């Protein structure tokens, strides 16, 4: 449906970086450009919701804007439905269809609702500006706009001035405007980030339902990992212009391929140690505080450094020992606990390390209590060092 190949976009470095580069004298020409997007490739299947996830400045928005045609990449190829909308290499482009001819739908972070128009006019605009030959009649426009507004539950606000809407309504209006032309691809740039937490949660499911019902292929940009996990059929985690990991939400959460991904998506304990055994199904890692068995087929050689990533909810906390039958049982002392409503977090000191646990709210152990920690080898992940 959408395919992106080797997309690269650079910007001029700001003055300070440039001065530093000149002072360093090393590859000055290279250093004056900053990579916003660096050799990014991915495919989005028909009807999928694909998420670009990453911290601010990781290039996710630039990638989205390149697909939209609002940004001109330096090189790469972008095709929507086998129609190449951008192709170029080394700063020279052979195809670059302007944004207004790509026929895509987009919702901006600020919603970009036109304040001088009514709700109806905002949604009708994309139909009204079509070429005379392709423009629907007035009655058709009214009918199509009415239908979309109904779907978005905005029908009763049709005559309202667009600025008089609440945040959630504005978001739905922006969505209505983006889909009224039934575009092949919908681009969403952090559409939930301007809403308060409660509304964000309810709209998240609303968005997912709508996307499913309409069956519209969607590219979604966000820095919120919870949002990404809840919505996406596939996620690309980006960092400094590069895609770090690409996969289904569950895979990325349970099997992060790097410390960055593990840290960015959820919280994690990172325990560093040396590989002492590897039999193909289980890897044994010796840390300074104890031994860990990890289910992993990774080809890490014995003697090499390794980091084990453990999600807090994978750490089981107990006052009594299982008696040597369980793998990966450590003993320690509770340092602090925090009641979070739907769960309780404990920080447990094991030797010199601190391990964070998350339990259901019935478990609550006072600081100073001696405890045992058990970590299921199936729920641990090996991540590469560095």
């Amino acid at each position, binding site marked *: 449906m959408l395919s992106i190949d080797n997309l690269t976009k650079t910007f001029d470095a700001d003055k300070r970086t440039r001065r530093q580069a000149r002072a360093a004298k090393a590859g000055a020409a290279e250093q004056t450009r900053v990579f916003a997007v660096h050799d990014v490739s991915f495919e989005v299947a028909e009807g999928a919701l694909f998420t670009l996830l990453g911290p601010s400045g990781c290039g996710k928005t630039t990638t989205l804007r390149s697909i*939209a045609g609002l940004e001109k990449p330096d090189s790469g190829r972008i095709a929507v439905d086998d129609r190449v909308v951008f192709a170029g290499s080394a700063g020279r482009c052979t195809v670059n269809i302007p944004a207004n001819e790509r*026929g*895509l739908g987009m919702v*901006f*972070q600020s919603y*970009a609702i*036109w*304040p001088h128009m009514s709700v109806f006019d905002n949604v009708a*605009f994309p139909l009204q500006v*079509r070429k005379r030959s392709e423009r629907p009649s007035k009655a058709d426009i009214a009918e199509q706009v009415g239908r979309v507004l109904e779907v978005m539950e905005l029908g009763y606000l049709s005559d309202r001035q667009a600025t008089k809407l609440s945040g959630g309504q504005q978001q739905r209006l922006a969505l209505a405007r983006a889909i009224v032309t039934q575009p092949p691809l919908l681009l969403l740039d952090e559409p939930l980030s301007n809403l308060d937490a409660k509304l964000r949660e309810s709209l998240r499911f609303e968005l997912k339902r709508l996307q499913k019902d309409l069956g519209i292929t969607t590219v979604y940009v966000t820095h919120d990992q919870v949002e990404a996990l809840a919505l996406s059929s596939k996620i690309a985690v980006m960092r400094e212009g590069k895609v770090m990991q690409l996969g289904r939400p569950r895979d990325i959460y349970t099997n992060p391929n790097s410390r960055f991904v593990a840290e960015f998506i959820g919280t994690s304990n990172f325990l560093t140690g040396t590989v002492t055994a590897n039999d193909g199904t289980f890897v044994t890692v010796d840390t300074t505080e104890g031994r860990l068995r990890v289910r992993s087929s990774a080809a890490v050689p014995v003697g090499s450094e390794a980091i084990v990533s453990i999600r807090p909810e994978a750490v089981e906390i107990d006052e009594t020992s299982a008696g040597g039958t369980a793998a990966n049982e450590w003993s320690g002392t509770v340092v602090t606990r925090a009641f979070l409503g739907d769960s309780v977090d404990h920080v447990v000191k094991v030797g010199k390390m601190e391990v964070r646990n998350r339990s259901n709210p019935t478990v609550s152990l006072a600081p100073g209590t001696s405890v045992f920690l058990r970590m299921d080898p199936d729920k641990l992940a090996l991540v590469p060092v560095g």
Partner: protein
Amino acid sequence: MAVMSTESPAAVIAPERALPPVPGRAARLWRALFAPKTLIMAAVAGIIGYLAIVPLYYLLYGTFFDAAGFTLSGFERAYSANGIGELITNSVLFAIGASTLSLVVGTALAYLNVRTDVPFKPLFFAASVIPLIIPGILYTVAWIFLASPNIGLLNKILEPVFGPGVLDVFSLWGMIWVEGLHLSPIVFLLMVAAFRSMDPSLEESALMSGATRWATFRKITIPLVRPAIVASILIMTVRSLESFEVPVLLGLQNGIYVFTSRIYFVLRTYPPDLAAAGALASGLLVVAMLGVLLGNRAGKNTRSYQTVTGKGFRPRPMELGKWRPLAGALILGYFLMTVVAPLAVLLWTSLLKFYVAPSVEALKSVSLDNYRELAGLSQAGTALKNSLFLGLGTATLVMFLMSIAAWIVVRSRVRGRGVIDQLAFVPLVIPGLVLGLALSFVYLRSPVPIYGTIFILLIAYCTRYLPYGMRYAVISMQQIAGELEESAQVCGASWWQTFRRVLLPLLSPGLIAGWVYILVVSFRELSSSILLYTPGNEVLSILIFEQFENGQFTVLAALGVVMVLTLVVLVTVAYKLGAKVGLRQQ
């Protein structure tokens, strides 16, 4: 935890003591009336009221009353003169033409600068600031050198193609051209602010909807900046109606009269007919007010939209593509027209004995004689001193008064604060020449010996530039959160301490910007000075005007160069100092 009270500190320190006896109503009123805050506010309100209202009152009194009582004879004399219909037509055409030209040029340049990848962006700053610094009279004189039918440099250049004297600056079109170009930087600055504060995603979403660039510009961009456009039209129309230099220097030559030049003409014939001049001034006042009313009516239908979201994406300039060279050529042309040509022709003329077009031959006669003559001219030194005194004095007084007035309007809950805002706006519609006339009405009768001193000029300038100072102060006041002030109060600071220690420093970037602006415009003021100065109190622009009338163009040009240089130095120093004093905004 005990509930903190906002009562007097004494009550907090000694809670065991009984509450102090409640003072009587009269005593409380008495104390509130003479609190420093009330006194300061009353004084400021009084000064603004005095400056804005009294001249108007005396102008109308002097126009409608003579020794015998109420009379309309001034109106009869003024409006029965030949060509009065033409006068009104000329005034309106001139105002509409100049404001349209400045609006189109200024808006186009602002859009190119903010929203596109147009080349020569650094030139924009120079092209927008330098014409503000060049006094109107010099600008007009420079254009006479450039486009007069006889000696105009441009005419000399165009002669081989179009024949002699193709450009005539001494025509209505010439007047519109010079005034419009001189006003365009103001529109540029207003529109740049408007375009900058617009969320670019509003335009991008129109593009994504399939709208072409042109449709986006027409249906999204322009409607969104309409409030700024209406404001620009309003200001430019009033400014061109009250313009003095251009109509007098360019129009009188061929008898093209507008209100201002006619008033000047009536006052210069002997004996000066004050009542008739007052009648014309009243007419001009009415036209200017009508303009403002119409503008406000148009502005009523345009809400100003809060289009800045704060979370916007970094604005990315649009690519002009094949239009880029054309846009670049336009920018260069504009820069040459507004900055390079006027300054260059002034400099060239200042080096000559008599004006000739540049040539190798003429280059040989170049000398600094005019500057030497200037140095020997005692008047020049006095004028420079006076201009400096008036510029610095006006800027300081106005900004100080207006920062307090702005506080009253924006922050206080005093009843009638809106009146202060409106009063401070009044002088904006009073053309400089009318103000000069009105003030001479006032102080010719006043027993206080102000007429004939430099202080009458100071009063005139302060009145004229009240509205500008007010706008600068109000806008910066609105940007400061009320909590900053409240926290100072909670810390125990008095109103005056809060104002001086918290508000003034926070306001300083805006106040300094206003100060610099008023300094510049006072330094070059001509239209009210022309009726109020007396020998010994000349300012630089008056001296230039006198030399123009005497036909001493070369000395005039030298004086002009000195004046522009002084202004450049003043503005630079002011900004450098401002950067040190305040938190400079980006």
